[in-house]
């Protein structure tokens, strides 16, 4: 065992001394010190609390929807209530949870630390983003009070401009505001990555998570304004009767779809690219192995972001756009498959000859490979013109995007949450409960959504309140799966909460990560680093050694002595 203690404060043995030490959580007290904070870590935590609230709302509505589907006839609610509920589920999950999920909550916390910086480039703008999120969320709640909205999260015209429910304008306004929140975060991250990298950290010495966040930020900044203007036009048409999309007023309804997907397809990559960044970190750290083909993974993030802009028309193969457009969009869509495939192959290759540790975050990373594999491959059916005609707007599509968005992004989010939890709050959660919950979610998820592939390809249309006989068995299995998943989430909530009050103190580097956030204390001080971090290869684990006395890893020199 190392004889000298590390200069970087370590937990465990030195715990008594550390607990008295100042960190970003206990530096100042009171709700106001949080609401006016400019510290990216606190803003990240505030985001985390908020988006988890949104996730709870979206998740509970999903459980209600699934319960309604236990049979093909009305069970819990009326058609209008069902339509409002699935719209709420989609809008909340997309705009309030999954888009800000990894970047704004976890990214905000770790990005500057990974760069070796004190904060993001524009801390005030960062706080402003959070407030915009809150205002957007308030708009969403307001729209519920005003009668709700039943347009689907896609707001297709002319239904959305003629729908009888008065919640449409507030929710669209909310989405508009949330767009700005997202743009500001993206802008902040781009500038931070360009300007605030620690001395010695070249672009190709950045952890891949940062490449993911960088690509994401580019999409956020370039695509979100288009959503903004589209939603504004929608509000103008609905409120003032100006004909833009409604043919009865001289507008063009399909134009709305082009505008909408011009943003919303790239938005899919706002959701998945940061998740891919997370997986690159997890697989490498928990395999104790250098990431395989760093540059290909880094460039593939950028490639996905770039290709993502030119494939929106694949949401519209049945919309009546010309055969030529369909053909071009189909071809371009396949181009996105390649960088995604490259990533998956590289992650798998990273495990080769590693020393794989099955901690909770790694279980999520492995689940990701499995689920994202299915999500990605089923995308092929939808990119292919002839098969998409049959599958479009059925449960097959619902299953596909849940495998990507949930099986991909949410699973990666959970992996990231468990990975950085000790760093964020300085506490360890119960590893065994972590594994149990991951297993429950994995099983529940597959039950819920794999069945939906089959019922979709059998012809069950999506957004159906009632359904015809023959789909009942699938729906029942799917609903039971969703209950299992819900149990998994409550288990997570339970042990994470418990860890905050009773958890073992986290060491600085519980997993043996080599990126900079593991060189500072858990939780970090306000200024992130007491001592300038040593910048090196973020995937070189050879000089990190497990120290059972502190339950974490310490840096050792070539002689195996702690440095």
């Amino acid at each position: 065992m190392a004889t000298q203690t590390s200069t970087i404060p370590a937990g465990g043995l030195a715990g008594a001394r550390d607990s008295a030490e100042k960190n970003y959580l206990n530096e100042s007290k009171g709700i106001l010190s949080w609401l006016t904070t400019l510290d990216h870590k606190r803003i990240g935590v505030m985001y985390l609390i908020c988006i988890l609230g949104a996730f709870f709302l979206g998740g509970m509505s999903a459980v209600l929807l699934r319960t309604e589907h236990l049979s093909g006839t009305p069970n819990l609610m009326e058609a209008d209530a069902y339509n409002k509920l699935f719209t709420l589920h989609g809008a909340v999950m997309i705009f309030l949870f999954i888009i800000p999920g990894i970047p704004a909550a976890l990214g905000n916390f770790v990005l500057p630390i990974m760069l070796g910086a004190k904060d993001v480039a524009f801390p005030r703008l960062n706080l402003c983003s959070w407030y915009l999120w809150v205002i957007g969320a308030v708009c969403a709640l307001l729209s519920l009070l005003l009668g709700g909205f039943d347009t689907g999260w896609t707001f297709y015209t002319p239904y959305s401009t003629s729908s009888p429910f008065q919640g449409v304008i507030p929710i669209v306004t909310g989405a508009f505001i949330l767009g700005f929140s997202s743009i500001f975060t993206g802008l902040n991250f781009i500038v931070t990555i360009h300007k605030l990298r620690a001395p010695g950290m070249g672009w190709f010495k950045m952890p891949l998570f940062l490449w993911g966040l960088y690509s994401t930020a580019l999409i956020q900044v370039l695509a979100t304004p288009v959503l903004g203007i589209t939603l504004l036009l929608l509000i103008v048409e609905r409120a003032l009767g100006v004909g833009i999309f409604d043919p009865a007023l001289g507008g063009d309804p399909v134009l709305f779809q082009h505008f909408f997907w011009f943003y919303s397809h790239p938005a899919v990559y706002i959701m998945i690219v940061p998740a891919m960044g997370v997986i690159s970190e997890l697989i490498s750290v928990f395999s104790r192995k250098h990431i395989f083909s760093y540059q290909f993974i880094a460039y593939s993030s950028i490639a996905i972001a770039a290709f993502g802009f030119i494939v929106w028309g694949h949401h519209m193969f049945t919309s009546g756009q010309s055969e030529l457009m369909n053909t071009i969009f189909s071809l371009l869509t396949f181009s996105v498959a390649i960088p995604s495939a490259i990533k998956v192959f590289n992650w798998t290759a990273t495990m080769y000859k590693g020393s794989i540790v099955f901690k909770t975050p790694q279980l999520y990373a492995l689940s990701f490979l499995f689920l994202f594999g299915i999500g990605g491959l089923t995308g092929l059916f939808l990119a292919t013109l002839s098969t998409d005609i049959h599958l479009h707007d059925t449960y097959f599509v619902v299953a596909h995007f849940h495998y990507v968005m949930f099986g991909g992004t949410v699973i990666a989010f959970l992996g990231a949450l468990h990975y950085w939890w000790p760093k964020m709050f300085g506490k360890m959660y119960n590893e065994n409960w972590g594994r149990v919950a991951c297993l429950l979610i994995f099983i529940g998820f597959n039950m819920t959504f794999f069945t939906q592939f089959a019922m979709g390809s059998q012809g069950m249309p999506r957004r159906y309140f009632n359904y015809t006989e023959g789909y009942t068995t699938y729906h029942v299995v799917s609903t039971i799966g969703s209950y299992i998943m819900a149990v998994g989430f409550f288990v997570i909530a339970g042990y994470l909460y418990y860890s905050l009050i009773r958890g073992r103190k986290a060491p600085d580097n519980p997993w043996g990560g080599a990126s900079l956030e593991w060189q500072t204390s858990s939780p970090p001080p306000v200024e992130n680093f007491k001592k300038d971090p040593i910048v090196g290869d973020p995937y070189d684990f050879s000089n990190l050694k497990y120290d059972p006395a502190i339950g974490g890893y310490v840096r050792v020199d070539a002689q195996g002595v702690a440095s």
Partner: protein
Amino acid sequence: MEFILSFVTQSLVQSDGDFWLPPRRSTYAVEIDWMFSFILYLSAFFFALIVGLMVWFCIRYRAREGGGPQPSPSHNLKLELVWTIIPLLLVIAIFYEGFRGFMRLSVPPQNAYNINVTGQKWKWLFSYPNGYVDEALHVPVDRPVRLTMTSEDVIHSLYIPAFRLKKDVVPGRYHTVWFNATAAGEYDLFCAEFCGKDHSNMITKAVVHPPGEFEKWLEDASNFLAKMPPHEAGEKLYKVRGCAQCHSIDGKANTGPTFKGLMGHEVALKGGTTIVVDENYIRESILEPNAKVVAGFQPVMPTFKGRIKDEEITAIIEYLKTLTE
């Protein structure tokens, strides 16, 4: 030999469905299903490959007491190129086949039989060349049929899973699709684009008639005034002539007054007078809607003069009478 051949072609053209796909009942569905299966097996192969390797690595290279990672290169350009180029070639092939199948289902043959389709919240109207309108799609077997579709209100989407056919039905424009049904029977026809409250009830049937029977059906159906009891014929007219869009039968006022209890009821007219509803008043309301306008409603009802026959008005009146009992 001949038997086997006909069996093979038969099972190619038709299938009663499997775990993944519903019964196959149109000519171009063969190609689409083939494509589906091809992608399915290819995906299954790649999925097994990735997950197989992952599981194998997890077992073989799990962390062990005293062990650690073994050195191996962290980059290999040849390998990268292999797993870039092979998938690239495969997706190009898939794209091309999908494109071919799509063109087949996009271009209707010249001699296709045309049926006009209107989607509206929340039903379908199919109008046949002789002017007859029905709420279900009736077609002959083994004959190309073209649908020319538009919507009265919001976007709908016509979807017949058994034919592997789907196309949005958009207000203000016409979209065409075609198919050639391969077997007689009744198949589900769904609305696939969310259109409000009763979206999931916007379901009807595609009825495929055996050889020679479609024409007979059309003749009989077009003659429904003579064949059906008048109040039933009236109900049908109420639905297919568009009255249902403005007049409810459940007592709720819509664009126009409800039909429930209308017959024999006293109605207040614009200008302060009242009138008791009888056959003549109804007849006049249909032919000259603006002659007497109901108080509290806009005079927006279109005239049906020249578009509706006397027998049809009689049938509607008979139907309205049933709504008063």
